[in-house]
């Protein structure tokens, strides 16, 4: 009965995957579909001559780093609060989780409006509270575009981090926390000595998910900035898309794809190894 599933997997994942490795060794374009074998030239160009690619790699690292650094602590804090104040917690949880389920394209557009230099709510708010000098074209300014994108990213994913933390905390028997209360631990001591150590594994998993996620990231940046201004906000995926389908260099795009695949593969293997050891223990 599982045969059809396998057929699909092979047809749509493994065949194209192999194909991509093959394509990455060629140069051609959509106008002139004459494929020229270039060996590893695409790769040397990428790492030696393509500033935007290197910048996109850096952006991926920044994205993963800031996601871990900001979403995880806030997520853990929110999860703790939600579980402590259950009465308002449920609704609160649903609200912070909403951004994660609505279309990333819709979210991108909403935030593009919010960041709009003239009508955007953020500048309007800043001017209204007398911080008008901070108002700027957030997405158009090379100094703030990436930060603005990160803001939206966090808006989307804090809900997910919170949810996963809640799940983990809920799987811990409540008697452990009660025991801590009887042992006389203060709220802060309980968090530091009991809660945090019990969340250690989750935090590692979340960090890896953040890294893997950064390599998957596409919709938001493509809609919000298309990599601009001055190619400063590209991530590897958007740069791949641009190279392959806008600059008409599919071979080069495929080579970028190969690097994305290899990076993510390693990370996913790591994640699976951790998850698996958790599952089998």
């Amino acid at each position: 009965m599982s045969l059809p599933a396998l057929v699909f997997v092979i047809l749509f994942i493994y065949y194209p995957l192999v194909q991509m490795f093959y394509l990455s060794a060629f140069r051609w374009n959509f106008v002139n579909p004459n494929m020229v074998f270039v060996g590893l030239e695409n790769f040397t160009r990428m790492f030696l001559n393509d500033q935007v690619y290197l910048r996109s790699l850096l952006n991926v690292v920044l994205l993963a780093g800031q996601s871990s650094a900001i979403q995880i602590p806030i997520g853990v804090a929110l999860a703790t609060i939600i579980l402590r104040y259950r009465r308002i917690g449920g609704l609160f949880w649903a609200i912070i989780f909403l951004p994660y389920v609505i279309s990333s394209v819709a979210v991108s557009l909403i935030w593009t409006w919010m960041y709009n230099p003239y009508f955007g709510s953020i500048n309007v708010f800043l001017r209204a509270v007398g911080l008008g000098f901070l108002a700027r074209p957030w997405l158009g300014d090379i100094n703030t575009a990436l930060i603005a994108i990160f803001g939206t990213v966090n808006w989307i994913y804090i809900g997910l981090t919170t949810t996963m933390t809640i799940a983990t905390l809920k799987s811990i028997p409540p008697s452990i926390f009660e025991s801590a209360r009887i042992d006389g631990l203060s709220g802060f001591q309980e968090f530091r000595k009991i809660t945090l150590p019990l969340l250690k594994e989750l935090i590692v998993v979340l960090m890896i998910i953040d890294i893997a996620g950064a390599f998957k990231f596409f919709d938001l940046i493509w809609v919000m900035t298309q990599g601009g201004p001055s190619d400063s906000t590209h991530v590897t995926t958007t740069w791949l898309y641009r190279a392959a389908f806008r600059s008409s260099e599919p071979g080069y795009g495929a080579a970028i794809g190969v690097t994305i695949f290899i990076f993510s593969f390693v990370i996913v293997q790591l994640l699976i190894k951790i998850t698996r050891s958790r599952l089998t223990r």
Partner: protein
Amino acid sequence: MANLQNNRRGRRKILRTVLIYFATIIAVIFFIFPIYWLIATSLKTRAQAFSTPPLFVWEPTVRNFIDIFLKRQTEIEAITGQELELATGAETFFYNSFIVTFSSIAIATVIGVLAAYSFSRYQPHGTNTLMFFILSTRMLPAIVVAIPIYFFYRSLGLYNTHIGLVLLYTMFNLPFAVWMMKSFFDEVPRDIEQAALVDGSNPIKVFYKIALPQVLVGLGATIGFLIINVWNEFLFALLLTERATRTVPVMIAGTRGEVGINWGLIAAIETLYILPALVLIFVLQRFLLRGMTFGTVRGAK
């Protein structure tokens, strides 16, 4: 003495409660304001949407929603090419999104449920490896297969067709369907099925008469999450569709950067577009953890 202490403790408690509520309200505003603003804009006319400072009090209008489907006025007022396309094509995009979502989920569900059942019950050799295999394919960035699939589709004539998108989405969601459904089947005790098998019922009958009814809720949840996934998909829709098969997100994304476009109308389209996910997430609350964490978190009840 004791009274004074109680008082002080009481006051501190009140202060803390106030602080927590205050922080909560700030957080809620942060999370909900953008969505609120979208819906608010959808209820504004073009002029109202562009007013500076923005209007917080206005007479809401549903004209934008009417215009999406009955848009004679919009067509006349259209200023940009984008707007004209919207004015003439919004329902086509919704239709495309709907047909693609519906078909791919129907196929993915049927195949996925069968596969999940066989993994759960018969545990063919290497089930565990295969399950992790399936999981890992989902975690890999879909974009790495974009280029080959693009050429593959071009050469097979699947480019710019509904069936092409349907096949692709079926594939992308199968792993999820299998994984989710397996977890639901695993929860159902096998005794009844085994008793039926011992009594000589045939396995196919046992599957749909006994096993399937017991996981109906899980099936519903799985389908719900699939809808969210497919309905929101952007990258391949962008890559593989043109005018005739374009889905809503591609169209919405295309309106970015347009100057002077009717924000009210776009907001209305977006509101309609995100509505299914909003509704589903409240319906699916109970399954949120399992669906979203994809089995990476245990103990999600």
